[in-house]
């Protein structure tokens, strides 16, 4: 097997607030294989966006990478100088920010913003940049004559395509997309995901998709990394995650999602409670307070991410009982109050 394109090991990222350290990402480890789409899934505040931004080190000033490594093609993204990092941005790793729809500058034509990347970062001449910009627009399915338009002249879905075109500008090896289809309606969402899959296949790139939506992961991601309260709690192929989840949080996420392919509507079961305060994380497993299967042991000893069967890692003390827990997790009464 070839080396993964990106290998994250024991990564911790801390926000330093006066008198308080908030550990947003806590000893996270996972790999992004070459030519794959990896989903980073979890609810708001789980650290997925912080981690995604760390891959291009565009984290805020009070955020510090306190331990761990991010090995990208032989370079440790946590250690390289700012100058080296800057060389990688756009050229090797491109970031599509959350609500990319709003990340375009409203007062400049889209063409100008494309040229900033192509000429400023890619060192192209004006005519090269013009040709490349037209080519990129075609790749994402927008007519090249729209390059002269301002962002407000595009619909939300088209602006999202423009943001993806920008990310592709300099042929990066890795695209990190933060919630690229949230806020879009189902038809546009599907068309954008299809486009991303086609581009990934044609160009052989890798994509990290940050999302809170497991249906997005189910549709497009080869592998999925589930995060909870700053920690990676499960990591495996997406098909395995959906059919044989090992972590109770993953089981719960599936119950909470309406499935139009199912015979009836059944009852959707929320995971009651809220994630812990990351400034004062609890002892033991961070999910224990919301977990219907938590034992005393879970509340005192923190489980570590361990390999469990083929290519499947999980951080749960009861992973060896997963099959029985899955059966129980499918029953709404297991999760207590559904309101």
């Amino acid at each position, binding site marked *: 097997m070839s080396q993964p394109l990106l290998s994250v090991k024991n990564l911790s990222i801390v926000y330093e607030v006066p008198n308080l350290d908030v550990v947003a990402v806590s000893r996270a480890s996972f790999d992004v294989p070459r030519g794959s789409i990896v989903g980073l899934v979890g*609810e708001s505040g789980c650290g997925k966006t912080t981690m995604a931004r760390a891959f291009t080190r565009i984290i805020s000033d009070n955020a510090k990478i306190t331990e761990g490594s991010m090995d990208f093609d032989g370079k440790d993204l946590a250690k390289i100088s700012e100058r080296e990092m800057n060389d990688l941005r756009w050229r090797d790793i491109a970031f599509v920010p959350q609500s990319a729809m709003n990340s375009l500058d409203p007062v400049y034509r889209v063409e100008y913003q494309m040229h900033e990347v192509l000429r400023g970062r890619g060192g192209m001449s004006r005519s090269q940049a013009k040709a490349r910009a037209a080519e990129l627009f075609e790749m994402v399915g927008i007519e090249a004559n729209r390059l002269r338009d301002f962002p407000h002249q595009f619909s939300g879905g088209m602006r999202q395509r423009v943001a993806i075109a920008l990310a592709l500008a300099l042929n990066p090896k890795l695209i990190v997309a933060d919630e690229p289809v949230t806020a879009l309606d189902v038809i546009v969402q599907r068309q954008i995901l299809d486009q991303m899959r086609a581009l990934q296949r044609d160009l052989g790139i890798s994509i990290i998709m940050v999302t809170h939506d497991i249906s997005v992961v189910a549709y497009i991601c080869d592998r999925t990394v589930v995060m909870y309260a700053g920690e990676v709690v499960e990591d495996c192929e997406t098909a395995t995650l959906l059919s044989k989840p090992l972590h109770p949080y993953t089981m719960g996420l599936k119950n909470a999602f*309406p499935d139009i392919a199912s015979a009836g509507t059944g009852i*959707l079961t929320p995971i009651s409670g809220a994630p812990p305060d990351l400034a004062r994380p609890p002892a033991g497993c961070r999910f224990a307070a919301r977990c219907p299967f938590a034992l005393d042991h879970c509340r005192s000893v923190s489980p570590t991410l361990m390999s469990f069967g083929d290519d499947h890692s999980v951080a749960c003390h009861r992973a060896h009982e997963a099959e029985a827990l899955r059966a129980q997790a499918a029953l709404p009464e297991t999760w207590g109050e559904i309101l």
Partner: protein
Amino acid sequence: MTTPLVEVENAQLHYRVGSAVSAMMGLPSVVKAVDGISFSLNKGESVGLLGESGCGKTSMGRLLVRLENVTGGSARFDGAEISQLKGRALRTFRSRSQMIFQNPFDAVNPRYTLAKTMAEPLANAGIPKSEWRDRIIKALELVRLADPEQYLDRFPHQLSGGQLQRVVMARALILEPDFVVADEPVSMLDVSVRAGVLNVFREVRDKLGLTAIYISHDLALVRYVCERTIVMYLGRIMEDGPTEAIVREPLHPYTQALVAAVPTPNADQSHEPLPIGRGAPDPRNPPSGCVFRDRCPKAFDRCAAEVPASKKVGTRHVACHLFDEAG
């Protein structure tokens, strides 16, 4: 037979857009957000308004709670034309019909405590101050916020999205309305808390016997809440019928695309391209005939020439020329 609570007949909501200059250049200056919509809702019925962004579903909802007025046709509530209500009748209408908004953080004043936010409708309706606290607590209990007292002095930013959406729901219910329009009430919430909010919505609706409209682009969510669904496209109704039938066998080509686009949490799902052209047309300049025809894989000559009328097909109404002969 009981009369319907809500009756909409050929309703239109046309927005004037663009400048005098663009009008002089002959550019169309009207967006027909709602263009000839008819349906009625019986007391206690829940209907989903389904469609893509820009299809006019939110405009339709706003007409029914009088955040907009029809520019043509008619929209009646309990027999009275909504846009003509005045004085006392309007005040009564305002307390009987309510809207729940999409983003809870935009729907409340960030500088008001939740008690103050909740008291506004009570003050507007002239409820004596001595009753406010009890009614606020009761409304918060209704949406299953545990230990409601603790929320009264808090500010919106101190709540999670799910908690705040429950507060917004409680505010809409505090005057005990008969009719509620919920505009994508869970789209801003995390998947893990969505289910709880939807379950509360269903419980409250059944308990109070509410008539409800649930606006969404996601048929899976509509199916969870409504037995009937109305599919809208560019200001018109494409299909109207029982939600289960629409999920299992969508008739209109647009509904077929919408059903195919619904994301599922399964690994074995179809990756076939959607049976729909890309990009909705400019709403100022919709196609002639059927507004969906330029994205429709099944369009034929008549679609450009004639606007399809709504036809009854089994338990449903469909506006599509493919069903002209089916009669």
